[in-house]
């Protein structure tokens, strides 16, 4: 099973790398996205001399890590699921000797693998233009990686839920944007969550998206430490379970639609 998953993942990465220019372009896109944020914060810092709770190189590092993590937190396979439904490939894929759910998890791993490549390139290139802080210590870095790994199933199950909407509407691209917008708002992608109103922060604390950007970056910067990290991992595990159940319910319902109504 694991072998099959990794094989599918590897094929996904290879598929991307068929187009040699893609990695370069995706990296360039990441950097264009971060430039504005960083210049805006530099301007504010030069004007006021301070930013709530962050040193200027911390805030720059924050945003560089945000764009570095975007490929792993926002990208994924959900357009693939909608495509497979729309074009009818799903009927073929349901005849695979492994479940559709597992098959696409393999594909998700491929996306994540390519995302990781892009992330590493982005991080290295950003180091040329700005001074990026390194993790405060090795333990912070390990915790940072753990949180990111736990995001993979959460993100995948969420995409499964969004993707199965392809059974009901052709306008799944809108659902995608909705997913990305909600994650952007509640994850700390726009700005560190501590800069948001308190009521808003309370909502963000409950949702799993904070762990996509804000939490790991703050662990990296050493602003979240110790036992708190264990609580966060606990929270993530609970969310993995919740999302798994939801995704299964959504997916099984959608497959019923195929097996009863013939798609």
């Amino acid at each position: 099973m694991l072998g099959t998953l990794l094989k599918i993942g590897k094929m996904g990465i290879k598929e991307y790398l068929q187009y040699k220019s893609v990695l370069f372009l995706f990296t360039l896109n990441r950097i264009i996205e971060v430039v504005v944020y960083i210049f805006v914060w530099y301007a504010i810092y030069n004007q006021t001399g301070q930013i709530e709770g962050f040193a200027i190189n911390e805030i720059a590092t924050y945003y560089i890590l945000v764009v570095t993590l975007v490929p792993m937190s926002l990208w994924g396979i959900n357009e693939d699921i909608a495509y497979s439904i729309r074009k009818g490939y799903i009927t073929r894929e349901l005849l695979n000797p492994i479940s559709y759910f597992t098959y696409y998890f393999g594909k998700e791993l491929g996306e994540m693998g390519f995302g990781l490549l892009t992330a590493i390139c982005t991080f290295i290139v950003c180091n040329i233009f700005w001074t990026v802080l390194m993790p405060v210590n090795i333990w912070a870095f390990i915790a940072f990686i753990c949180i990111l790994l736990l995001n993979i199933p959460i993100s995948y199950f969420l995409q499964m839920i969004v993707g199965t909407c392809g059974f009901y509407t052709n306008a799944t691209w809108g659902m995608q944007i909705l997913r990305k917008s909600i994650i952007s708002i509640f994850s700390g992608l726009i700005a560190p969550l501590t800069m948001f109103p308190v009521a808003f922060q309370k909502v963000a604390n409950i949702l799993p998206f904070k762990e996509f950007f804000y939490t790991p970056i703050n662990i990296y910067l050493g602003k979240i430490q110790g036992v708190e990290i264990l609580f966060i991992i606990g929270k993530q595990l609970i969310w993995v379970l919740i999302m798994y159940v939801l995704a299964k319910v959504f997916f099984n319902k959608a497959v019923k639609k195929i097996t009863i109504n013939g798609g």
Partner: protein
Amino acid sequence: MSIIEVKDLEKVYKTSDKESGIIGYIKHLFQPKYKEFKAVKKVNFSIEEGELVGYIGENGAGKSTTIKMLTGLLTPTSGKVIVNGKVPYENRIENNKQIGAVFGQKTQLWWDLPVIESFRLIKKMYKIPENEYRKNLKKFSALLELDELLNKPVKNLSLGQKMRCEIAATFLHNPKIVYLDEPTIGLDVLVKERIRKFIKDINKEKNTTVILTTHDLKDIEEVCDRIILIDKGSIIYDGEKQTFKDTYGKQVLAQISIKNKNALITNETIEDEFEVIEETEDFLKIKFNHDKTTIMNVVNRISVFCEIVDMHVQEQGLEEILKEIYRGEVVC
């Protein structure tokens, strides 16, 4: 026990009967009305291991609904399907391990990658033992001439090349049963021939059961021994292909070269024994029915009017018989 057992199989589709307009839509939301449509009605058949079966019928006759129930993609409304001891729609994944399927142009190959990559994935997914995989790959490559294609990305292949690879991919894990839905659509004659030969060869060697649905009846003619004919959801014929042709294909077409014609051969002069389709000074094309007359009779009749130089008799093909059945000219 038969490898596929189908008993009283029925499938009823419910389609929502919406009135048009927003008001109709809202009405439907609260009080949904459904129309029922019986796609498959009380179908029974059983297929033995190693049989080559052509499953034919017009568009909308219930062909693909049946195939979908056999593969487990569709749950029957009532009745039962057992494939090699398993109920496919209750245990899809387990059933998937023993079957292979080609669905028209819906490829299982990865578009951007070389074909061999997809093959390796199939090897992993179906847990094909290394030596078995090698053996099959070597044999299939020879039969379907894949050697030069394996390292090319799928997107660069022509339709025929793609289908050859697809067929190989389907048989790679030695499936017990293979469902082929329109495997030759849009292909040129040579590729069609090659695919047909491949199916027959593999069937002979591995005793693979093959169920073939196609609109190209030459596929059936050349591959299948048995046909199941479905019309409006019911099976109207199930049996040997040759018996089918003998029973329903009674029309015979004869093309006759003649000389020294002494009179016009009209339908009147031959008293309805056969039908003249075309007539010139040295050529005659006629049609007659096996039940009503024999070739000897016809020859005797014609010799009265002319000398016969050469004669070419053609039995009705599957295609012509089916056309007559669909038109209602012949009843099963």
